[in-house]
């Protein structure tokens, strides 16, 4: 939940973005008139605040208990006078904060008491940021004597005795009672605290809402969390923090993407990933490009309810990112620097007993490890370099040859930012340099982020918000994923156990004819390579330049009607090259070079007309009408040298007899939209939200091009509604909403196309294999959710529960038809994927003392995913197939059934052996001929995370543990490593004695046919013994692995984060030219507390598409990062 952190971060609190600077200065000339008749004080204050476009903050108990009805006539007063007058009959006072806030506080009466007087003074700061807090109430306990802190956080007070107790209270912070205990100077750190109902979250269109008025569930993460324990890809910071959110990183090394899914997979063939929205505008490219330093907060809108207004793109939820703005005031420089080491966590249990060879016999060129025991005997050297002919070396285990191939990488980033602003113009400039090296040598990243943001009040009524960000990123040697032959991981993991690091590191040599050759134990291998060769001679470079720009004008017609117009652009250009030196065996025996360029952009043009007015004393209305034009364009070209470079290892595209070029016109999409949304509120206690949007999409056939989708939501603040609620409850909100979101199709699906390619005398023409559908209609997601947000004991304990149920219907997907039909698939609408589940957030502050504080936040989510229907023709869709598995969507099963080969089993139900594995007379289990056995499904049963934060004075310690329960993956890495005899699991039975179903795969009773006929076989228990090599080479490997034998439980618990932070107290930095300094030690992904899988990290995937789920294939090792972060404010 959003935690408010004092005045400095209270800048975004108006109902419409960027209006904080619009609030009328309290002493300004424009004057107001009010007429109150029997009005509750609270409402009167609210009215004054709204007139001045100020935001009112107060403690409910303070104001609500004031029963006095106010009757008062005010003519031509400015805001200060209005507040003074309104409060004149109460025991309340007000404080004006710099950012459009009016804070209502108890009136402090300085009494002169004729006793001994003591002068005390002190400073109050934010315990987390160390920033001084102005406007904090300081009250002498048991009296109404007090004061408030100045703008520098300092206060002075005269008290009767140094044994008295002071009470420090401030909105958004936990109240602290501090016994003086004889001290006359104090340093107070206030802990930020969530205030029920008053947290401001950013929702659709950059709209800021208080949580009490939200009819759906959201969760947000603040800047500090993103920058301190920094991840290269900022979205990874959400891991374990947000209920209902699943993040899996793709195994491409540094700078890799992540797959993010909110509340389960719902799209049959689409991505199911959420929309990213930055400052109110959807972005098109990678979220990993964004600079965490510039992000104020990330707010996760989990379901379509929250995102109905973004339309199509947000049916999978939205992650709304708000970037920082300049602040009014003096120039504020800050410098922060972060350095994290990255260390591989190698999970594979390698055996260190048997070396290269088969059948117990050594072979220098073998990629298997079924050779003899390694006892130091001299063996022929594997080197193909003629200079090493007849060399021998000691045959000994090399337990570190795999780990030697990795290195300790790092992430480093430095941010410099400057904020400055006058009353009318505020600006923020920020620059961040990031560089990183992966755990695989030569895999590195360099990134520059520059951004400027200017907010200006052009006239009384017209304001401008403008932003320009530029990003340039270069990634060296992004790792090809999975079993790609250019993926060094594949070759590192497969190093024979006896190969010495020093020998392997010599990855090339010059042969007798002067050619450069790969130095590998099995020259010419189909699929094998010296890993050092791959790291150094299979290179790629990827550069991306990206610009995000935004300009938004807001015009206030009146204080209740305004118009915003906005244009925004997100565009990127990328280029890459791939170099493979000759002798890279089957993927580049004669060298290979490829270059490519791509570009993509999204334009958004918006207008939004907003009306916000109290209709009566009880009723208020907020209504908006808006429109959007979205244009997406992208294109790419690439060329390669086909399969031969003419001059070896000279990398230019003309160095070949045969250039192959491709052009892609990408996916041009235009969507025009009109929408309206509004909220009616009654007594600030009941809120009714209604939205409606109509889209016109270029990708749909003319008749179905226009589609409408609505949502409705209700939120009630029970604490306001039911005064009889026991004291125990400090806040209670009940909310519910229903929404429907439409989604259009990919482009080019309404006509059958034909493409030209090179070949023959005049080229080849080929018809597309997907049949068009002229009757396509938009797909839709329907979602329902209810939630309850309860706070107890002055918010020391909080519980937030959400139940949701979504159905995604009329999905657009390709139905495979028999290729014999003349096409391989046709595009159609159909299907129904449901997701229902619970999300629970529990927050508690078990200990709260002036110096020591313990906060706990727990999240839990359980999602039940079900493919209810696909289509009449196809109860099952195969999304992708490879050697190990088929990824299928199947009616009546959770999304993403992974099929593979399995063991043949006795299928006669009346047989006493029903279900047992059938073993051949040779003792080897029989295998199904196709990918017919469902073996895995990645869908977890539940997920949860616990964050615990301890703070003592300026010191804080926090950790995050995250747990995933259930789901499974099938591992090609294991299938191949076992096949090659590399893991400890293959040690058993090297000399025979393995009896399938007995001492190996003991959980799978096995039988062998001993008689009968084919139709009526007679079985008896398998007793044939085989050896490890026979077993694993039969069921492992690349081409026909038995997936059923290599399924791993994905359950795991990890220490996701640990951080220790220390803010230097004001007293220590007082004489330095800085205003704040904070140092943190942080670690991410430190260790597994529990892991059910063998050899692999089940959460790493080969890619970010849905079909990568439930499949593991040569992902780089999971890595822990740890380091330090320093943040200086000037």
């Amino acid at each position, binding site marked *: 939940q959003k935690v408010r952190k004092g005045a400095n971060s209270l800048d975004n609190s108006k109902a419409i973005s960027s209006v904080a600077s619009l609030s009328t200065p309290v002493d300004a000339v424009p004057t107001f008139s009010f007429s109150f008749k029997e009005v509750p004080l609270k409402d009167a204050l609210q009215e004054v605040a709204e007139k001045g476009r100020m935001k009112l903050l107060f403690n409910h108990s303070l104001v609500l208990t004031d029963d006095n009805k106010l009757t008062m006539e005010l003519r031509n007063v400015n805001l200060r006078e209005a507040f003074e007058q309104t409060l004149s009959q109460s025991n309340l006072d007000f404080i004006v904060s710099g950012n459009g806030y009016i804070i209502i506080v108890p009136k402090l009466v300085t009494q002169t008491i004729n006793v001994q007087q003591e002068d005390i003074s002190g400073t109050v700061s934010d315990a987390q940021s160390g920033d001084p807090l102005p406007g904090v109430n300081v009250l002498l306990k048991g009296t109404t004597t007090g004061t408030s802190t100045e703008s520098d956080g300092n206060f002075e007070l005269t008290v009767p005795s140094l044994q008295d107790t002071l009470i420090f209270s401030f909105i958004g912070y936990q109240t602290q009672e501090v016994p003086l205990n004889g001290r006359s100077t104090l340093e107070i750190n206030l802990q930020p605290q969530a205030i029920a109902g008053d947290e401001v979250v950013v929702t659709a269109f950059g709209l800021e809402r208080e949580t009490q008025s939200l009819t759906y569930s959201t969760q947000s993460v603040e800047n500090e969390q993103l920058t301190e324990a920094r991840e290269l890809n900022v979205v990874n910071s959400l891991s374990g923090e947000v209920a209902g959110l699943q993040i899996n990183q793709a195994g491409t090394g540094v700078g890799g993407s992540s797959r993010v899914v909110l509340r389960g997979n719902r799209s049959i063939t689409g991505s199911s990933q959420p929309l990213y929205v930055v400052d109110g505008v959807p972005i098109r490219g990678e979220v990993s490009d964004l600079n965490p330093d510039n992000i104020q907060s990330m707010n996760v809108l989990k379901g379509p309810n929250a995102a109905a207004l973004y339309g199509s793109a947000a049916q999978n939820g939205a992650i709304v990112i708000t970037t920082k703005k300049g602040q009014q005031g003096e120039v504020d420089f800050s410098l922060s620097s972060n350095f994290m080491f990255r260390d591989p966590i190698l999970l594979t249990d390698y055996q260190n007993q048997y070396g290269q060879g088969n059948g117990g016999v050594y072979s220098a060129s073998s990629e298997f490890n079924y050779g003899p025991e390694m006892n130091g005997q001299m063996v022929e050297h594997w080197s193909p370099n003629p200079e090493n002919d007849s060399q021998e070396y000691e045959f000994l285990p090399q337990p570190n040859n795999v780990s030697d191939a990795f290195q300790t990488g790092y992430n480093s980033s430095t941010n410099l930012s400057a904020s400055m602003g006058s009353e009318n113009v505020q600006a923020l400039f920020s620059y961040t340099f990031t560089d990183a090296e992966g755990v695989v040598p030569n895999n590195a990243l360099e990134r520059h982020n520059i951004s400027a943001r200017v907010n200006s009040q052009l006239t009384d009524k017209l304001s401008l918000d403008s932003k320009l960000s530029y990003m340039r990123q270069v990634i060296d040697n992004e790792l090809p994923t999975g079993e790609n032959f250019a993926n060094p991981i594949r070759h590192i993991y497969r190093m024979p156990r006896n190969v010495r690091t020093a020998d392997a590191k010599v990855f090339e040599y010059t042969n007798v004819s002067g050619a450069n050759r790969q130095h590998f134990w099995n020259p010419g291998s*189909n699929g094998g390579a010296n890993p050092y060769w791959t790291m150094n001679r299979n290179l790629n470079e990827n550069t991306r330049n990206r610009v995000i720009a935004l300009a938004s004008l807001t015009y206030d017609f009146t204080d209740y009607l305004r118009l915003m117009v906005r244009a925004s652009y997100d565009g990127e250009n990328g280029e890459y090259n791939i170099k493979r030196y000759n002798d890279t065996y089957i993927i580049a025996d004669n060298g290979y070079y490829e270059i490519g360029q791509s570009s993509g952009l999204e334009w958004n043009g918006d207008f939004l007309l907003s009306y916000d007015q109290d209709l009566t004393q009880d009723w208020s209305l907020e209504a908006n009408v808006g429109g959007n034009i979205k244009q997406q364009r992208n294109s790419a070209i690439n060329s390669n040298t086909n399969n031969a470079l003419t001059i070896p290892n000279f990398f230019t595209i003309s160095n070949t007899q045969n250039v192959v070029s491709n052009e892609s016109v990408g996916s041009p999409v235009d969507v025009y939209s009109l929408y309206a949304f509004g909220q009616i509120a009654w007594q600030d206690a009941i809120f009714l939200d209604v939205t409606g949007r109509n889209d016109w999409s270029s990708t749909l056939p003319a008749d179905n091009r226009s589609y409408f989708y609505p949502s409705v939501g209700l939120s009630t603040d029970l604490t306001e509604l039911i005064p009889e609620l026991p004291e125990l409850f400090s806040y209670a909100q009940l909310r519910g909403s229903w929404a429907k979101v439409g989604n259009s199709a990919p482009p080019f699906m309404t006509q059958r196309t*034909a493409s030209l390619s090179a*070949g023959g005398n005049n080229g*080849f023409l080929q018809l597309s294999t997907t049949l068009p559908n002229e009757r396509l209609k938009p797909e839709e997601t329907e979602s329902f959710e209810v939630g309850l947000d309860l706070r107890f004991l002055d918010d020391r304990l909080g519980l937030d529960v959400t139940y949701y149920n979504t159905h995604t219907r009329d999905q657009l997907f390709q139905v495979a038809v028999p290729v014999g039909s003349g096409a391989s698939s046709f595009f159609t609408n159909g299907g129904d994927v449901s997701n229902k589940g619970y999300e629970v957030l529990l927050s508690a502050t078990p200990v709260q003392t002036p110096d020591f504080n313990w906060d706990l936040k727990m999240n839990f989510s359980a999602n039940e995913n079900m493919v209810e229907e696909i289509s009449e023709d196809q109860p099952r869709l195969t999304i992708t197939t490879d050697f190990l598995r088929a990824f299928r969507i199947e009616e009546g099963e959770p999304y993403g059934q992974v099929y593979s080969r399995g063991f043949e089993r006795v299928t006669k139900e009346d047989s006493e052996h029903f279900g047992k594995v059938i073993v051949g007379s040779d003792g080897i289990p029989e295998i199904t001929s196709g990918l017919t056995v469902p073996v895995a499904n990645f869908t977890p049963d539940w997920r949860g995370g616990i964050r615990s934060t301890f703070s003592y004075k300026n010191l804080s310690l926090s950790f995050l543990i995250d747990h995933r329960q259930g789901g499974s993956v099938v591992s090609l890495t294991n299938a191949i490593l076992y096949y090659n005899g590399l893991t400890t699991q293959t040690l058993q039975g090297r000399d025979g004695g393995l009896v399938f179903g007995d001492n190996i795969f003991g959980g799978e009773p096995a039988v062998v046919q001993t008689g009968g006929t084919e139709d009526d076989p007679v079985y008896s228990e398998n007793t044939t013994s085989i050896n490890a090599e026979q077993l694993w080479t039969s069921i492992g490997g690349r081409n*026909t692995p038995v997936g059923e034998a290599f399924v791993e439980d994905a359950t795991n618990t990890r220490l996701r984060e640990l951080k220790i932070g220390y803010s230097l107290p004001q007293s220590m930095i007082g004489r330095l030219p800085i205003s704040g300094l904070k140092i943190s030690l942080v670690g991410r992904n430190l260790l597994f507390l529990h892991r059910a899988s063998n050899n692999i990290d089940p959460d790493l995937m080969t890619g970010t598409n849905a079909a990568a789920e439930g499949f593991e294939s040569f992902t780089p090792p999971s890595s822990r990062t740890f380091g330090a972060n320093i943040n200086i404010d000037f």
Partner: protein
Amino acid sequence: CTDFEELNTPDNELIADNLESSQLGQAFAQSQFVGMYGNPGAAPGAFQLSQSLYSDIYAQYFATTATTFDSDQYVEIGRWTNGAWNYFYGSAAPQLEFVEDFTTEQGMEVENAVARVWRVQLYHRMTDYFGPIIYSEFGNGETSVAYDSQEEVYNNFFAVLDSAVTVLEANTGQNAFGNNDQVFEGSVDQWLTFANSLRLRLAMRVRYVSPDLAQTEAEKAVAAGVMQSNADNATLLTTPNSRNPYTTITDWGEFRMSSAMESTLEGYEDPRMGKYFSQAVDGDADGDGSPYEGMRNGLPVSQKDQSALNAAYSDMGVDWLNDSRGGTNPRIRIMSSAEAYFLRAEGALLGWAMNGSAQELYEQGIRMSLMERTDASSSAIDAYVAGNDTPISPDDVWDTPAMTDIPVAFDTGGSMERKLEQIITQKWLALYPNSKEAWAEFRRTGYPKLYPRINSLNPDIPVTGDFQRLTFVEDEYADNREAVMNAIELLGGEDENTIKLWWDAKPEN
């Protein structure tokens, strides 16, 4: 505002509904190349999946050295054949169907006839792999596409050839598709000769199952005029962008000459040896006096030391190697006059009207092949034809004996089967590397007398047994299940590698 229709139409592609006759040739060209050899690009995956991993090693032109190529040990890898099936039906057949439909609609009779002859050429290779196939129902646009039995498919082949030949005969001297036709540059006359020769090939294929049909069709073909000189040969153009797949496959180092090839070519001191194969890197390591070395098929993983095997045994001849190793990117073989003579020789053996005696035709077939494949002098060719040498033992680590005892010289006094073995063995040598035809003829006749495998991983097929067909593919089981189930009934109830095809009906003697 943007024009939505225009925006939703790709700029770099044509719209199928708007194609014009001027673009037809490129569609036909696609069906020719892709139909024969899959994708035309640098990575000849389709060729590997459909031919290299199956018929190339089942016809024992090659043996595999790659550890994971279990098809050499009689294991059918479903995913490979799945790819082969999809490449044909997904990438080649739709274009051919389109050309046939378009030419029918537009009344382009000659082009239509040429396309139909090509249809027979492509589909007979499919049915000879699988048996029942999708044929008459192809392109029905439905979610279920029925299979035809092999008998129906073959009967239709003859009917299609009848109608096409009628049109071609009426249009001799004409041209169809111009140089988009990569086989004959559009020559109707040559297409006519090819159509007749193809009929002869198919006729002989059904000899055992349907002798009368076979004789009728074969005699019809010869009467109408089959290939007689190497100028009649059907080969497919290769270009840098549509390459002979072997020029890439050979770079991968996964295949080497088979022992069967070594035994015969070396035994006959065949002048084609040096054209067909390269000398082994290790030279004459076994000391048999020849640097051309063949390896046995079906080596278990434990014996597959890939780099050692690749060095010890012969790669393909230099023509099929990559350009950088002196390769010439040779045209792709479809049918040759030598094959036509061998087919006529077999017919003559049976007393059919083949316009020549079995011996004459057999010897003419050998001459044609040697003239086509080598630059041997006519005296050398004469000597070869009259040669009495027999295949030798490769003298290898497996103690492999000579493959058979037949000489080249036609054994006029020998049994019918011995003569047939001579004809088919020589045809097998002449066809190289067109293994799809060679494997079909091996299954039909039992010749040449190929070696048993060293090892079989297929519990149903012993090392001395024969792999008869490929099973229906995974995607068909998933997407076209009902039709596959019916096709299995057409096959006799079981979808196994051991089921003989319809034409595979030679009586056991």
